[in-house]
């Protein structure tokens, strides 16, 4: 099954709605709590990144009996140095985002750690595509 979400940029208070809906969907499908937690953490981080850095974007989720695939696409500023961004603690988040408790520099490392596969394609000035994949059976 496929799910589609439009994410608004800068909406810190409501950020996380898409990952919350995906979480509920996974519970309705009877996916194991451990996988749900991994998807929740990764997808929430990715969604928050989209809100903080990219002025929103779109999320497409595909769930089959074997896999969960999540594509997050934005046309934001892109990531200048992906290796640096992958380092724990590195962040380019705004002062406003940091004051709200976001931007601790854990987003990308957390996404990588909790997903079974993560690929990022990014181009400065054009945007970023993130693909997160999870196997349903551990």
């Amino acid at each position, binding site marked *: *099954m496929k799910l589609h979400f439009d994410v608004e940029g800068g909406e810190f208070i409501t950020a*996380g709605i898409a*990952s*919350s809906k995906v*979480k*509920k*969907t996974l*519970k*309705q*499908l*009877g996916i194991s*709590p*451990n996988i*749900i*937690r991994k998807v*929740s*953490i990764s997808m*929430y*981080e990715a969604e928050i990144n989209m809100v903080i850095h990219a002025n929103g974007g779109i999320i497409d989720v595909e*769930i*089959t*009996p074997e896999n969960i695939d999540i594509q997050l696409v934005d046309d934001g500023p892109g990531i200048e140095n992906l290796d640096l961004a992958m380092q724990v603690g590195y962040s380019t988040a705004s002062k406003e985002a940091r004051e709200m*408790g976001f931007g601790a520099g854990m987003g990308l490392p*957390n996404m990588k750690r*909790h997903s079974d596969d993560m690929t990022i394609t990014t181009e400065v000035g054009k945007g970023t595509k993130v693909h997160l994949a999870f196997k*349903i059976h551990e």
Partner: protein
Amino acid sequence: MGEILHSVKLDIDKCIGCTDCIKRCPTEAIRVRNGKAHIMDERCIDCGMCIRVCRNHAKKAVTEPLDKINDYAYKVAIPAPTLYTQFRNIVNPNIVLTALKKLGFDEVFEVAKAAEIITAESKRLLDDKNMPKPVISSACPAIVRLIQIRFPSLIPNILPIISPKEAMARYAKEYLMGIGIKKEDIGVFFISPCAAKVTNSKQPQVIEESYVDGVISLKEIYLKLVPVIKTIDQPERLQMSNSEGIGWAHTGGEGNASGIENHIAVDGIENVIKILEKVENGKLDDVDFIECLACVGGCLGGPLAVENAFVSSNRMDKIKKFNKNNLYKRDIPLFDHPIDMYWTKPLKTKQVLKLDDDMEKAIEKLEHLEEIYNQLPKIDCGSCGAPTCRALAEDIVCENAHIEDCVFMLREKVRDMAEQMVTLSQKMPPSISKDS
């Protein structure tokens, strides 16, 4: 045990089938069917929200009547500390405890004292650092059930320690048997502000058997205590607890008693859900301990309490202040015999939201659910008997409702049928001339 017992029950005669309870239930466990509310056992967490919001008093927690204590030769009351805050101008717990004895109890042991012992044990477990952070308190049974149903991935974070009422019931029985009273003669009765604690005494999930023999609602005993309290000039020395244990009744009380600075205390089930969502998203790993309480104000706001939670909070402050200087405490070897304070059975996941055991079928149902949901008006009016349009769509795919249960869909169908009838009425039979 197959059947799920619940303390929250419906008085069919009083229910008018309004939507107050279905709208406020945090687990969407209530539907209106045939003009009456219907509680879905597997989803109910006994939080008592429906009891609180029902304007017709159709929802009640089933507790034991006070007379039930007469089934036992030796009657023991174990009151929740919330009881102390229900009476105006009473700051000395000994007065309330003495009044309980005058009502017919042979012995009174405070749950607040057990809370202090549980606090010490919890602190020890937290210091071990073997548990995933943040550790979540297991004190509120409605929250434990909520996690089991809605946040099963957080089960390993729950502190696997028994509740203060269970600990006190164990200490009481061990002590009384130690001084020669027969086990079968001892009846331990918890005086409760909470519906979920009734359920968890009758059907404990994480221990083999509860030592609590009955639960009496605080509401019921309050009315009987008021005239007795007025007659007490010289209270007995019955209190053993300190401010820390008594404070457990209030939001933040458990965390404050344990001295864990890096903790969050959250009350009100909607607020708790928001915090648990954050924990599930991995955003609160930097917090050591989370105390979640289903009722606003903690146990002071329990659905079986009499006084307003905010008034009780004011009284709680006065009681705690009085107790800081009160050295008039009872000293008996109640805690000499150690008890097992840990869960002896694992808390199991309850996948009550699952649409089908077969994953492919579950996906099919979910796709169908989305299709239905997209046809519905999405205004969540509740007229169909489900709390939201989405819940109605879930009920339809689970064959527990029809799309025509939605008044808007029904009206649309009636209009279509009317249009068809008008079209039909304009078609003349061929035997009749069109000109005639």
